């Protein structure tokens, strides 16, 4: 029988660097990025809407890339705190994600410059003079009241200050997490305990800090597109959504890398199964927060809140919302429920792709109906096509950057007690 011969422990391969085919992934990502961005720009010219849709689509691409990068950082810190063998596997890919922060900041700049400073995206940036805007019927009374009341927060100066501050603090965290990780590997075995505590101390506060700053970012960058609406669970939804996307991406990465050393040796079915279970957990958590918020607002049916949902359900948007539910929950959930599926690489890949696609779809549903021309009125325009090309281009370039980062370090962190465990043979049952 298998498990008898399998009792012998495996050894870690000598070369821990990423296999050569990662270069191929990168070239492919670059080509896709180039083609899609060029088409995106052409569509921007054709759309003739003052680059409005281009910028909205850019925001979508930015939010997704940002979710991978900083969500990766949050998950990295979480695994330092929670422990577990799966943490060892995902550590280096997550670190590679965090190191894309400069690119993500670059993606942010157009949102800040064009969206806020040049007033192209955010209603509150567009009409700081609420009285006149109201008189000229550019905004309604609710919007005028909200923009006026929230001015201390929703103004270009504070927007830039907060955004720069949070980017800077995340950069600091990225720097420390990456630097210490290499130092830890260079250190000797008996000091593992010391390093564990050090990472725990950094991550403990880091996760708390990240939750707060992400909430601020989510409110600023997405929620404030509609300055009248608010929901207290919004930041938490982004936190869970990011983990959902990052888990899918990290599984894709590991499965992709598992055809060659060193991941081939250490990526056991047990851990793959565990990661699949984590995906299932986050799929549940995600729908839980979304549905609970919807049920509360639906039951309340108050004119202050319900328009946000009506904007996203009526006028054809119901189709998008229903498909959002299908992609985000129904498909991944029913598929991940199967024990076998989580253990078969080829099938798990499909689920992960659906999950990442669902994140983009959801972001589209969150962003586009904020705008007057689209709310309760889903209609075709050339501009809407940009939601396909611009984000794909941005995400593809981000992926290229991620793959290059993956190449820069050994794929396995070696100075960890879990290394020995992960080289052990598996149980027949898990």
């Amino acid at each position, binding site marked *: 029988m298998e498990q*008898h011969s399998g*009792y*012998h422990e495996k050894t870690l391969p000598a070369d821990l660097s990423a296999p050569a085919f990662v270069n191929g992934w990168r070239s492919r990502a670059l080509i896709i990025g180039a083609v899609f961005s060029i088409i995106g720009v052409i569509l921007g010219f054709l759309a003739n809407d003052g680059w409005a849709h281009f910028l909205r689509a850019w925001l979508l691409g930015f939010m997704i890339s940002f979710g991978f990068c900083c969500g990766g950082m949050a998950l990295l810190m979480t695994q330092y*705190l*929670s422990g*577990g063998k799966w943490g060892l596997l995902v550590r280096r890919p997550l670190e590679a994600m965090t190191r894309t922060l400069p690119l993500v900041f670059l993606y942010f700049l157009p949102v800040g410059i064009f969206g806020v400073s040049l007033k192209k995206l955010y209603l509150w940036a567009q009409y700081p003079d609420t009285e006149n805007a109201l008189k000229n019927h550019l905004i309604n009374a609710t919007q005028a*009241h*909200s923009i006026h*009341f*929230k001015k201390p*927060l929703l103004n270009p100066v504070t927007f830039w200050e907060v955004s720069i501050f949070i980017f800077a603090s995340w950069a600091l965290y990225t720097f420390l997490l990456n630097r210490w990780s290499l130092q830890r590997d260079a250190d000797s075995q*008996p*000091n*593992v*305990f*010391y390093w*564990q*505590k*050090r990472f725990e*101390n950094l991550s*403990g506060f880091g996760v*708390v800090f990240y*939750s*707060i700053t992400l*909430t601020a970012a989510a*409110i600023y960058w997405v929620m404030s597109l509609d300055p009248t609406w*608010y*929901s*207290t*669970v*919004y*930041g*938490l939804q982004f936190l869970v959504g990011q983990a959902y996307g990052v888990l899918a991406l990290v599984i894709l990465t590991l499965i992709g890398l598992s055809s060659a050393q060193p991941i081939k040796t250490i990526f056991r079915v047990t851990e793959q199964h*565990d990661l699949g*279970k984590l995906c299932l957990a986050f799929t*549940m958590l995600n729908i*839980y*927060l979304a549905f*609970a*918020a919807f*049920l*509360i*607002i639906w*039951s*309340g049916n*108050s004119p*202050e809140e319900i328009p946000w949902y009506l904007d996203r359900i009526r006028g054809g948007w119901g189709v998008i919302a229903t498909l959002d539910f299908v992609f985000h929950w129904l498909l991944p959930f029913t598929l991940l429920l199967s024990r076998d599926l989580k253990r078969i690489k080829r099938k798990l890949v499909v689920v992960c792709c659906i999950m990442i696609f669902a994140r983009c779809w959801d972001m589209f549903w969150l962003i586009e109906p904020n705008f007057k021309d689209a709310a309760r009125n889903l209609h075709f325009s050339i501009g809407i096509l940009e939601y396909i090309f611009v984000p794909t281009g941005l995400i593809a370039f981000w992926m290229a950057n991620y793959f290059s980062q993956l190449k820069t370090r050994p794929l396995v962190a070696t100075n960890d*007690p879990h290394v*020995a465990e992960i080289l052990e043979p598996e149980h027949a*049952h898990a």
Partner: protein
Amino acid sequence: MATKNQPLNDPMLDPITGEDRVIAPGHTFKSVTEKISRIVLTSHTPIGWFGGLLLAGGGVSMLLVAVSWLFLKGVGIWAITQPVAWGFAIINFVWWIGIGHAGTLISAILLLFKQSWRNSINRFAEAMTIFAVVCAGMFPLIHVGRPWLGYWLFPYPNSMNVWPQFRSPLLWDVFAVSTYATISVVFWYIGLIPDLGTLRDRSQSKIAQFAYGWLALGWRGSVRHWVRYETASLLLAGLATPLVLSVHTVISFDFAVALLPGWHTTIFPPYFVAGAVYSGFAMVITLAVPIRKFYHLEDVITIRHIENMGKVMLTTGLIVAYGYAMEVFMSYWYSASHWEYFMMWNRMFGPMGWSYWVLVTCNIALPQLMWFRAFRRNVPLMFIMSFIINTGMWFERFVIVVTSLYRDYLPSSWGTYRATRWDYATFAGTLGLFTFLFFLFVRFLPMIPMSELRILLPQAKIHAEGEPLPEAGD
């Protein structure tokens, strides 16, 4: 905190990971079985147990008196009136059911995450769940005024030709809590079966053999049975996890679907769940510390358990704090709504503002001490902390219920709330009932799952042929 020079020869530390052991070294299958089953099977019941039972019995008597008087006189003996129509009954209901959640969480989520340290505390944490649900379930029932008609809550064909109204969260509660109680009992009992088999086989008295024999259903430890048993346990754990989430979520809906400032907010579901887990873990510590001392169980409820529970409490406490912060930020200011603003102002600085600050102190400020490793590893301090947190969590519900209700929209209909002695007597009575049931449990059932403890022993590792076998049992 972290030092580079860790003592490596400490027997309570794992030599590889440097973490504290879950179970002290030197134990064998036999000694573990012996240690746990002796507590139940002994014929010498410790005198302290009788003392404790008597004390708790006093509480139960008080509860009986309070509830009898309530049935005689009606809910008017409580302080509930307009505008605060939901007083202690709902506060205690939410508080108790929240406490119960840690039990399910320890047995379910930690099982799914393969956190083996849970194995020694899950049994009594589950028992705690069931007893907490008993206490919790009582409150809505006695609050309905005519509890003998409580069955009207269920949808059943009846001669009045009426049916329940499914758009009300109070009805959702009926289904959530009844499902929760049922699944908790089933999960607990399934977990007990192998240990009941052990007790059946080890007991000397005929009565015990007969009782445990029936309860064990003929369990004989076949590995085929074990495989199905493990699957069923994992499935129940997998089901109990979303169940726990849903139960406290539904309870949060009782408030959140209403259009009342202070109640109607979307963060309620996750932060109610986190708060429930928070207070539940505190209650586990409140129970575990005296038990491990009294029954000398330091070997199996180690400092690792206390520390890990401290970490869970810190995490959930921070989620709760995040919830408060979002509420304050959104209500007080970002909502741009006068009613929301006034509610939050009144909650913090109104006549009952003191209760808000008690909650902030107990739930947010003091628990930050748990950031320190030394604090988490100090058993007496953690014991005190567990009381602080449960006080804070009780006040959280008090703040949510009372301070949102007593001054809502129209100043002409404002009122206040002052609990009566019957409110206090009922609450204290349920504390007695909880303790009473717990005393019975530790005496008659194994409070630590023996079968799961055996898995943690080094002897349980399967060795390949040719490898030297470890020393067999003593």
